[in-house]
């Protein structure tokens, strides 16, 4: 396309939240900032007094921080992975969704990545990792893979954004210099488009394995130990599935929220939700399949220590959490999404939220019980998270919300140019593609 058409582009009302964010935006920002500042204070207190202010103890030496670490990183799989897959599979309905998804990734990764540091007893010694870390420790693998994933996904978020930034620049939206700087002199020439497409094609291929590796490696933190309930080969895929699962739920929730707040009904149509929720349903079934086989093998093997953990989850102290998890992750989504009547926006919202909760519980159920039931005859450990841990959890969530709001404040959450591109080209492209699937009419069938 040439430069922006004179006629007011219908898609430009996507820029409204950027051009005038409105009062409520600032109120929310202030509230969030307050929460975040308090969280900061709480964290500083923890650094000052030591981890004693948490509810962790022997033998449950890992708690909320690790749980949330796994949880947030899991959510992060929403974006990049999904949008990459959709892009790769040329699913045209992806266009309004991809960016939202990618933004989630970038922000949540940043938050999740911080959690191991919060969990350190001596954050002041972080630097030790640099001059004598040891790559044989799964923690180091994590650091590497998460850095890779973070950079990759930000790049992957940024590059498709350039044209939109250019639009903002051309419309002279403040702060001008920012858009000028970020737009990298985009003018939408053929050449530039070619470059952009090629780059994106490379990226979407690179990103997928990285994304998968990240959560696999996170699962390794547990699977590499010999602890009952952790030392399992399917943990890698299990975690990845769970991650994508929770990711999709997260996107759905966000989509519904934005649809409501920015009145994007024109863009986020029921069809999108429908597709995504079906995807969610599929993941839910997949998740159940993994959970089932994980516990069945444990149960059938009947190794005493395994069983101690097993019963601790199924009928012991953790039974309530466990069965809630099963309900949230499997039963509820299954009921709500498999049935067309309930596969409505509210139904989907409920399902997604329950999945998010369920997945958090799953992380809890993976981390704590194995620690609480040591192999040797110790008493079973107890873990009651302290207010500090709750606050930091809340803080993490609010950082996410704030981050997302800030993004939405400066950049369009729906890729304008991709939509336009879709309007102008994809219809043609798709028909071509479809005809290319069809058998050619010219060549007659060989007579037998």
């Amino acid at each position, binding site marked *: 396309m040439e430069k922006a058409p004179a006629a007011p582009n219908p898609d430009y009302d996507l820029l409204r939240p950027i051009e005038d964010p409105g009062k409520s935006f600032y109120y929310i920002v202030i509230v969030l900032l307050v929460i975040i500042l308090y969280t900061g204070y709480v964290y500083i207190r923890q650094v000052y007094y030591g981890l004693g202010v948490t509810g962790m103890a022997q033998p449950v030496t890992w708690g909320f921080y690790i749980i949330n670490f796994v949880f947030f990183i899991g959510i992060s799989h929403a974006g990049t992975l999904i949008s990459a897959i959709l892009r790769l599979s040329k699913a045209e309905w992806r266009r309004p969704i991809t960016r939202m998804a990618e933004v989630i990734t970038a922000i949540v990764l940043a938050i999740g990545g911080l959690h191991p540091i919060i969990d350190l007893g001596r954050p002041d010694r972080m630097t030790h990792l640099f001059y004598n870390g*040891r790559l044989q420790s799964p923690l180091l693998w994590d650091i590497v893979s998460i850095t890779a994933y973070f950079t990759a996904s930000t790049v992957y978020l940024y590059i498709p954004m350039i044209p939109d930034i250019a639009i903002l620049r051309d419309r002279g939206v403040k702060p001008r210099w920012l858009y000028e700087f970020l737009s990298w002199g985009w*003018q939408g020439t053929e*050449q530039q488009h070619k470059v952009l497409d090629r780059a994106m094609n490379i990226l979407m291929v690179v990103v997928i394995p990285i994304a998968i590796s990240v959560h696999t490696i996170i699962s390794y933190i547990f699977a590499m130990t010999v602890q009952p309930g952790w030392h399992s080969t399917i943990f890698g895929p299990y975690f990845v599935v769970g991650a994508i699962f929770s990711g999709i739920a997260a996107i759905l929730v966000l989509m519904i929220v934005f649809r409501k707040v920015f009145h994007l009904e024109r863009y986020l149509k029921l069809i999108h939700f429908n597709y995504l929720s079906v995807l969610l349903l599929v993941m839910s079934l997949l998740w159940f399949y993994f959970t089932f086989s994980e516990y069945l093998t444990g149960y059938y093997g009947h190794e005493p220590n395994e069983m101690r953990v097993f019963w601790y989850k199924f009928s012991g102290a953790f039974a309530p959490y466990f069965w809630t998890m099963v309900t949230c992750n499997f039963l509820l989504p299954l009921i709500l999404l498999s049935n067309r009547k309930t596969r409505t926006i509210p139904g989907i919202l409920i399902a997604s939220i329950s999945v998010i909760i369920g997945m958090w519980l799953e992380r809890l159920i993976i981390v704590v019980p194995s620690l609480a039931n040591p192999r040797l005859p110790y008493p079973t450990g107890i873990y009651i998270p302290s207010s500090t841990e709750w606050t930091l959890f809340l803080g993490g969530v609010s950082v996410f919300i704030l981050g997302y709001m800030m993004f939405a404040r400066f950049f369009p959450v729906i890729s304008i140019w991709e939509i336009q591109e879709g309007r102008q080209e994809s219809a043609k492209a798709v028909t071509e593609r479809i005809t290319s699937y069809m058998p050619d009419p010219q060549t007659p069938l060989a007579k037998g």
Partner: protein
Amino acid sequence: MNYKLIDRLQILSISLIWLLFTGIAVWILNLIKESLRLHDAPDASLGISLVAIPVFFTLSSVLTYVFIGLRKGRKKDVES
């Protein structure tokens, strides 16, 4: 607005990214050296590095490619 400055900044940023990624690469290599010195499981370290380092460089090169590509692709008549 000062286009020259912004231009500089853009170049600076891209080079910083390179710096970062080379930094990471150097760090990983250093860790491998460490593990060799303390002879504890360098194999794992090697494995990681084999995957990680190329990934980082692909990313950075893609970025640069886009950066240069976009500059090349500018219309000549555009005024800065």
